[in-house]
């Protein structure tokens, strides 16, 4: 059996024509990941280009308003390009460069990962092509413009549901066509091994920093860490260094769309079953014959029918909890954090804020909660305005 398993989950379920590229990547990654020169180059980019470490901010007004746990926000929204996606992209782009690749391709949903990849490609003088669902291009027109401004070619994906899963399908095909000079920068902890491990390692900087920052501020570990989950990269990044600390509750907030009991949802662990797709065994939203379901969430970045295999494992082991948050709750949280703390969160991150509003009042005043604010919400303003019935065009 292939390496890269989390319990039964993970693996390398990909066409033979991709095996060489994936094997080459696995060898390169495990050779370079602990090499001092590579680590130093990456750390330099993270600190001086992306703006790390990101602050851990005590949300005093929100804490008082909810009247329970002391709430901290991990400000990944303050990173260059506006989300946690840059952590992974800088790592992969640096790796690709070391492997002698000249071109980066990537899928994107909300456009955050596409923008981050286009940014890294511009910085490192690499050619860049972003595959994006036609529906998502409409929802995130501003990010399409940003990618093109950064020199990337943005290719519209019209197949299937014309959203994130179809962009991944097409990106895999595009990788096969130009395997020699191209690296496929997967944006989340999904896909065949080594991607779930590699992307997690690059995002683990989030929990490494949280740990250090909360110990400095409070002298102890938090009682709960919350993050939104689509594929699950910001979430695993926020969880990773707390996994061995059993007293820390780890809570992943899935996008329930119009409700987890309905068809229009993207709450994979809550509503899905174990399956095999996009190179991995994990939970998927699917019908009884294994056809992948067309999922829905107001958040394009969470609108994905699967979840990273490590999340599937943490769920089955009972180490992490996964909860479902609806569009309605997420939009309310988007508005709540804006008015309460003066921080406009991404609609994806708003799912974690929404669950925090449910959970914090039920926790004691001396307990500590950390919410990973994975991205900023500027990109969502026009869509939320329209959702609220305002006639706003970007």
């Amino acid at each position, binding site marked *: *059996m*292939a390496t890269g398993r989390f319990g039964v989950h993970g*693996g*390398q*379920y*990909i*066409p*033979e*024509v*991709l*095996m*060489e590229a994936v094997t080459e990547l696995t060898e390169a990654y495990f050779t370079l990941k602990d090499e001092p020169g590579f680590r130093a180059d990456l750390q330099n980019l993270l600190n001086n280009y992306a703006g790390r470490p990101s602050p851990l901010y005590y949300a005093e007004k929100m804490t008082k308003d909810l009247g329970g746990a002391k709430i901290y926000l991990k400000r990944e929204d303050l990173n260059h390009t506006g989300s946690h996606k840059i952590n992974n992209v800088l790592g992969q782009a640096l790796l690709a460069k070391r492997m002698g690749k000249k071109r980066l391709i990537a899928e994107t949903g909300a456009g955050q990962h596409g923008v981050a990849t286009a940014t890294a490609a511009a910085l490192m003088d690499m050619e860049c092509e972003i595959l994006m669902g036609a529906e998502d291009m409409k929802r995130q027109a501003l990010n399409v413009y940003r990618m093109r401004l950064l020199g990337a070619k943005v290719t519209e994906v019209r*197949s*299937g549901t014309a959203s994130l*899963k*179809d962009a991944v*399908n*097409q990106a*895999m*095909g595009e990788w096969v*066509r130009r395997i020699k000079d191209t690296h496929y920068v997967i944006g989340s902890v999904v896909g065949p091994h080594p991607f779930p491990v590699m992307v997690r390692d690059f995002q683990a900087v989030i929990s490494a920093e949280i740990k250090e920052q909360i110990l400095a501020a409070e002298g102890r570990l938090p009682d709960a860490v919350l993050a939104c989950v689509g594929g699950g990269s910001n979430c695993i990044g926020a969880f990773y260094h707390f996994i061995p600390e059993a007293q820390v509750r780890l809570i992943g907030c899935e996008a329930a769309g119009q409700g987890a009991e309905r068809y229009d949802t993207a709450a994979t662990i809550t509503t899905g*079953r174990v*399956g*095999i*797709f996009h*190179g991995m*065994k994990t939970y*998927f939203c*699917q019908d*009884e*014959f*294994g*056809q*992948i379901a067309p999922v829905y969430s107001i958040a394009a970045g969470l609108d994905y029918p699967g979840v990273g295999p490590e999340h599937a494992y943490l769920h089955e082991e009972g180490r992490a909890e996964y909860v479902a948050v609806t569009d309605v709750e997420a939009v309310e949280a988007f508005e709540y954090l804006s008015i309460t703390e003066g921080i406009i969160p991404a609609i994806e991150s708003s799912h974690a804020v929404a669950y925090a509003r449910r959970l914090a009042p039920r926790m004691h005043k001396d307990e500590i909660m950390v919410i990973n604010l994975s991205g900023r919400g500027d990109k969502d303003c026009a869509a939320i305005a329209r959702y609220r019935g305002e006639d706003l065009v970007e």
Partner: protein
Amino acid sequence: MSLNQVFSQGKAVIPHLVCGYPNLATTEKLILALEKADASLIELGIPFSDAAADGPLIQRISEEVITTGVTTDQIFDLVQRVKNKITTPLALRTYANVVFSYGTERFLARAAEVGFKALILPDVPFEEKEEFASACNQAGISFISFVAPAFAARVTKIASSAQGYICLSLPPGGEVDWDTLRQAAAVPIAVPLGGRSPGELGETVVQADGVIIDAAVMEIVAEHGEKASGHVCDYVQEVAAQIRASGMRSVV
């Protein structure tokens, strides 16, 4: 007829059909047309929502079939009905999740019951094949392996343990090292047609033991719909004649 016999009578001609397109009744007629056209083996596809290893036409057709509500069970029922009307052996092509979600052992038991001789899963490489290949062995079905000749380091290990026959993944414009391949492979080697005419494949057709007519049959079905069976029969007969006429290499 066994899989060995498929390749023992000259070059094998292996047309592919996506079941349920444009409907199951037409698929039945198309299977009979392929029998009449003297196909050596018929590859029947159970459509998957995300047929990413296939070309755009098969992807689009697969999505359409699923939208009409055709299920795995309906396809098995169709094959059960039709199997007594034909002598051509059948191979089943689909994606890992269609098999896994049905219950791998249950799926293969049913596949064997309705008469399938081989299982082809383009998203299951050598490293992951065991979970499917062992269930295939129990059911008496050959698990078919893909070999990409560009990856020399993998060719020998995959080809030497392959069952039934090998599906060759042809690199665009790349060379195939037939000597290495032949040395490693204990089973026949089939190549995808890619286009419409065997002429486009050149020397590859001469070397191969069989040709899989991958998308061309479905192109004709997409064009002619329910009335496609005559056109498909004519086309496959013509291509089969060309493929068999190109046969220089002695059979395995």
